[in-house]
């Protein structure tokens, strides 16, 4: 390419970029003017204002006198909690079922296939509500809670168990009934349990399919060679097949982890206060829908990029080790 046409190309690109930026600025300007002319509040100053609502489950201390920003942090941490636990558990379950689908035992193979088909074809929202109903309805009220082990109670308020406490020296913080509910210890609420169970069971079905095709994608000769070397089938699976399947499996797994994280926002239906739920409340109390939704999208995008980043790195390492 000669110099003149290169300059022209650069100019053209600058022009297009300029137009895009100008259009974006026009959109933002218009939005702000129109919001103002309609008396709708704008800007992110609301984040510093007092939230004035209470949150049922928090990993960090939270009171209604804290800010909206802190409320959103509480929501984000709850999202992360269920997403991380969910991804780990779904991976274990998914790999197990994926392997089971290739089992030489007819019953195991068929059960695994039925699981995958059934779970993938029922909408996740419905599954969450069913889990939640089951967990709520099958357990008794707190005053009639089942004592599972000393200090461990199951009721329709969830599972409470003792926690070690290190204030004033070591002792166990043992749950006990006060008025309506249990105080002390740690509670796994039906909402959290239903969300986690629902996400794990659902995502595992997809992971199982990925694992199955990953294993199927490892050349058949590899399994036969391992058998010829005298490796027992499960050792052949662990030492020869799975490490090679890993390379095929990791890229599509990234998609499943992202899906699980995003699906956790369905929790608004069953009352677990994750990011979406807190955003909803914030949005409605402040009326700043555009800001609140933008913020939430940025956070989910950040989570997605971070997850992909980590897994791509893992993938690159797995791919390198191979040959």
């Amino acid at each position: 390419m000669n110099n003149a046409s290169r300059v022209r190309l650069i100019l053209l690109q600058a022009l297009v970029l300029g137009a895009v930026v100008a259009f974006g600025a026009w959109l933002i300007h218009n939005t702000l003017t129109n919001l103002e002319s309609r008396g709708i509040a704008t800007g992110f100053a609301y984040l510093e204002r007092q939230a004035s609502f209470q949150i049922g489950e928090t990993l960090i201390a939270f009171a209604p006198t804290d800010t909206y920003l802190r409320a959103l942090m509480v929501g984000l941490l709850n999202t992360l909690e269920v997403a991380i636990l969910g991804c780990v558990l779904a991976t274990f379950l998914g790999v197990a079922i994926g392997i089971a689908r290739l089992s030489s035992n007819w019953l195991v193979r068929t059960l695994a296939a039925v699981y995958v088909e059934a779970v993938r074809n029922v909408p996740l929202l419905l599954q969450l509500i069913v889990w939640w109903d089951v967990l709520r309805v099958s357990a008794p009220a707190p005053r009639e809670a089942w004592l599972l082990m000393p200090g461990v109670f199951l009721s329709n308020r969830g599972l409470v168990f003792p926690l070690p406490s290190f204030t004033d020296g070591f002792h166990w913080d043992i749950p006990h009934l006060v008025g309506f509910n249990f105080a002390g210890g740690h509670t796994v609420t039906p909402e959290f349990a239903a969300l986690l169970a629902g996400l794990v069971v659902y995502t595992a079905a997809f992971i199982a399919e990925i694992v199955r095709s990953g294993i199927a994608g490892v050349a058949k000769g590899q399994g036969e060679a391992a058998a010829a070397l005298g490796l027992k089938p499960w050792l052949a699976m662990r030492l020869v097949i799975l490490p090679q399947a890993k390379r095929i499996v990791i890229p599509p797994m990234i998609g499943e982890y992202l899906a699980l994280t995003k699906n956790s926002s369905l929790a608004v239906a069953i009352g677990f206060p994750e990011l979406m739920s807190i955003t909803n409340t914030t949005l409605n109390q402040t009326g700043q829908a555009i800001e609140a939704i933008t913020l939430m999208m940025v956070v989910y995008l950040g989570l997605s990029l971070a997850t992909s980043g980590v897994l791509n790195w893992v993938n690159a390492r797995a791919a390198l080790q191979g040959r």
Partner: protein
Amino acid sequence: MNLSRTLTAALLAMAIVMPAWAGPTLDKVKKDGVVTCGVTTGLAGFSMADRQGKYTGIDVDTCRAIAAAVLGSADKVRFVPATAQQRFTLLQSGEIDVLTRNTTWTLTREGDLGFLFAPPNYFDGQGFMVAKKAGVKSAKELDGATVCVQPGTTTELNLADYFRTNKMTFKPLVIEKLDEVENAFFAGRCDAYSTDRSGLASSRAGKAPNPDDYVILPEVISKEPLAPAVRQGDDEWFDIVKWTIFAMIDAEEKGVTSKNLDDMKKSDDPEIQRMLGVVPGMGKSLHIGEDWGYNIVKQVGNYGEVFDRNVGPASPLKLDRGINALWNKGGLMYAMPIR
């Protein structure tokens, strides 16, 4: 649900990004021949669709009265059901013309959300409902309770205020859909369910497996003036909504009902004559037909009729008039002069 939230936000963004705001609401309503109102997804007495899709309720009647005033027919209405969460974006984005959905009139909803509230069609207050077998007699005994609540409501905020000022703790269980909130509460997941007391009465009458197993506690922890809302910046439309409510109240005060209306047309009370358009002028001032007041009372009824039919002692909700009585009968219902 996710998707619909994102879509509404996108819609709002789109409506707002466009330079000019589509003309005044009245023109649009006349052109379309229909008034579009935001209502609940189903709260008996306020707005509820039956199997045939026919809506009834005090908020539904408010919407119908607006249509009667503007379009001459109470049936020229379209209802858009919305959870507490969805209602405000619907109004902001212009998808509905008026929000008639047991919505509390507050400062921030006018100042930050960009709305204006017409006079309340029901004065309420927040309360608690508990299972009778819990043996709770007062809200002051709710320390440590789990409380079921819908998000995006004043309820959520009042709860935090109430427990804080009374030095008690509680855990909110926040669920978006009313049906699911009710299911959770009646299944015993929460110790108490909190919302406007009219809402409690409605849930108990309509959704409780056995209404007698539940009690509404005596405490009223807030003021909840439930009122229709419109967007700021369209004063003509705001006036119409406002005076529709006043006309219904005034009709009751003057003893004009849907039954005696045609006789009342012959009344020589000047206020009645103005309201019913016998002496013209009021319709013109509102930029609508002179028979607006007549149509409201004829097709929907006066405030008292609407109250009795939907939430009064003869309805399943069995609510007393209480503070919703006329001002000259010890209540708060007071219409400004139609003149």
